[in-house]
């Protein structure tokens, strides 16, 4: 295997693939990236057995072949090479080391046999559809904050992507929850997704995909079966296993009859939450919302630091239902309002029941937030 490539091109691809590689790895070969040249095409592959990322890289190749080399080391070396450098990779085959040359710099890296590199078998992926990168980005951003990080409930450690009956119409739906809050986003059902099974995309896959979407515009091709999902974005192919579990019956926790409606400007609200919560020393930073007709008082207190409150009156809030007091974690409020453009709409029932939050101007996303009991 022998090739030459631009440092800039190479570093970008290496950045993608090495981010999949787990830092603490008990299986040595999983720390490696596979570099393969076949018929003039260079591909880099990395995997952690759950996710595999394969990227096509523009290069001038002179000999077919493949080897695997430590991904992190390779990335560090290439990153430190000067801008505009041309990198040559040369591996004669077998156990021989991989030679890397750029200008006057040269190194050789120990390789592991390509045969030992685990290939991720995607199997057949019967469901295929396209989503604009910008849509996929918006779906991820508005749900990923609610993904659970508590490992024992593995089935909550991802985004549940499925087809659901929306307002009389079948929609593609993404849902995430950590048991305290829930985010549900709907998009029109893309052609080809109609018969797809509900799948749970792991948190790490979501993160990797999101990184790729920063650099990609245009469409992403999504293909899936009930155990694997694949995203094709430009030169990158991301294949991932899905979480094999049952997502909870989330519909049952979305309240339908909450009738106490609060409307408030996103910026007014989130700034006030941040200012009031600053007093709190607790990790959860509880903020109390006290509501009366066209009046919202946010308050927080801390036994060792004192109290804080801020009023938002009729100029800035609209609320016509009866008085209500309810407490939330500041972070949870902000995670949601971060996703809302201008007007936030809250629908309350009472101080201990699930609360619905929406963007007043956008019905495609819905958030459910559980209060704190004071």
């Amino acid at each position, binding site marked *: 295997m022998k090739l030459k490539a631009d440092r800039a091109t190479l570093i970008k691809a290496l950045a993608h693939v090495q981010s999949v590689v787990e830092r603490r790895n008990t299986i040595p070969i999983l720390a490696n990236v596979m570099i393969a040249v076949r018929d003039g095409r260079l591909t880099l592959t990395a995997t952690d057995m759950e996710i595999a990322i394969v990227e096509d890289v523009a290069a001038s190749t002179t000999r077919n072949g493949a080897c695997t080399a430590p991904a992190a080391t390779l990335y560090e070396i290439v990153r430190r090479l000067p801008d505009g450098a041309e990198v040559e990779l040369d591996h004669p085959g077998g156990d021989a080391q991989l030679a890397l040359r750029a200008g006057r710099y040269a190194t050789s890296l120990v390789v592991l046999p390509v045969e030992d590199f685990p290939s991720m078998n995607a199997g057949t992926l019967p469901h295929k559809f396209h989503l604009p990168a910008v849509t996929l980005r918006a779906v991820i951003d508005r749900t990923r904050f609610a993904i659970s990080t508590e490992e024992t409930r593995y089935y909550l450690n991802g985004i549940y992507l499925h087809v659901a009956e929306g307002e009389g119409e079948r929609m593609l739906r993404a849902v995430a929850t950590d048991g305290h809050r829930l985010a549900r986003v709907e998009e029109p059902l893309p052609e080809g997704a109609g018969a797809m099974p509900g799948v749970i995309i792991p948190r790490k896959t979501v993160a990797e995909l999101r990184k790729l979407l920063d650099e990609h515009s245009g469409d992403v091709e999504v293909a899936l079966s009930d155990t694997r999902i694949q995203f094709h974005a430009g030169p990158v192919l991301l294949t991932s296993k899905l979480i*094999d579990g049952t997502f909870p019956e989330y519909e049952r926790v979305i309240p339908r009859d909450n009738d106490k409606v609060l409307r408030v400007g996103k910026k007014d609200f989130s700034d006030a939450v941040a200012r009031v919560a600053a007093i709190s020393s607790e990790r959860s930073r509880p903020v109390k919302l006290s509501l009366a007709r066209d009046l919202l008082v946010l308050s927080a207190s801390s036994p060792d630091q004192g109290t804080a409150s801020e009023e938002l009156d009729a100029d800035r809030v609209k609320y016509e239902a009866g008085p209500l007091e309810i407490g939330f974690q500041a972070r949870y409020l902000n995670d949601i309002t971060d996703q809302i453009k201008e007007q936030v709409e809250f629908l309350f029932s009472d101080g201990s029941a699930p609360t619905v939050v929406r963007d007043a101007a956008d019905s495609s996303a819905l958030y459910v937030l559980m209060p704190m009991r004071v």
Partner: protein
Amino acid sequence: MAFDSGSFEQDVPVSVDQPSGGDPQLAAKWARVRGRLQNEVGEVEYRTLLRQMTLVAFDEAEIIVQLPTKFLRDWVRTNYGDKLLALWQAEDRRIRRVEFVVANAGAADPAPEEPPIAPPPETRADASRAEPEARPEMAAPLEQRFTFDNFVVGKPNEFAYACARRVAEHPASAGFNPLFLYGGVGLGKTHLMHAMAWDLVSRNAGRTVPVSVTYMSAEKFMYRFIAAIRSQSTMEFKEQLRSVDVLMIDDLQFLIGKDNTQEEFFHTFNALVDAGKQIVVSSDKSPSDLSGLEDRLRTRLGCGMVADVHATTFELRISILEAKATRAGVAVPSKVLELLAHKITSNVRELEGALNRLVAHANLFGRPVTLETTQEVLHDILKAHDRKVTIEEIQRRVAEHYNIRMNDMSSARRARAVARPRQVAMFLAKQLTSRSLPEIGRKFGNRDHTTVMHAIGRITELMERDASFAEDIELLRRMLESA
């Protein structure tokens, strides 16, 4: 019977699966993995939840195990995923993952269809008996076993029986129209009406014009009537009803408060009586006591023959049970019959129901009917309620039994004379209450749950070794339960 799970139609075979294609050693490895798992988790848990695992694929570094339901899949993965992986890795170092999948739904064989609970009358063996004129829309089917022959006659019902026979022989004769049978529920009114219908129809063989008989409950009468109104076919309903020779309406009290249906019944009644047709009616009260029924209807109902069926006597109950047991072809000891006749006095339906249960139980489990099985099987009807036993009661009883003081149950004394009874009481507290062991310990002078466990172990051991001790404990248990 062991702890187990699976369809209750058949035993789930322990799967000795051979994954299709590939490694001939795979089955052996799988068997070893399962064996080790069984050793680790224990027989009960293994049999109940784990034995339904099937190895379905061996994919590179991955093992795929299938379970019949999503629940079992999640359960096995959560509780045994890591263990299975470790056991597999001990067999084959290349394996990195064990995956769990659910078997395709609907793959199981449908359960074999059981025969209907009783063959429909027309397929019954007794072909000599003609079915009453078929009126599927109108009449209710007659019970095969409700014949005059099967009706056990005694003092309380002999008058009603005689009237029924008379009407069956000479329908619509003067003074017997309508025939009004009344008495408490389940005393045999329905039986008599069905018997009349069978008898009337059996005489049709010698008649040039057959007698048509319609039997239905008042509930059904109302139901049909309402259905006819809904489908705007009341005229047909009326015509059908008025074309019969003998109309029998069971449980007339059902019409109380249902004015429209009463009205319709009244007209039908008049039309039939005027046309010289026979009417038989049953109710739980006499015509004069049927308040809530229109006066003119009550008057007309009472102007024929009114016969009451009295509550059964002990002698009649014994005769009924004897006749029934003989028909069922099951030997029932007379002590059992006496127990039933003594305890179940309310009505014949319940009495027969109890005997049916005994017979069915005996057939199902292949055990003869004895006084003991009777008490066991009919426990819920022979006893008005179950007792709950408290720990204090157990302590008191046991203390009395062993002649020690009640406060020795919670004292610190460790002399054998008090320690053994205390252990017995702990053992019984575990058996007869649902308290947790720490709670039981607390009731015995704040003792630790390990002390309770020790006591239970000790008493169990003694009971196994010493039959008379075991008998003693059993006696105490019974006393506590029936106190």
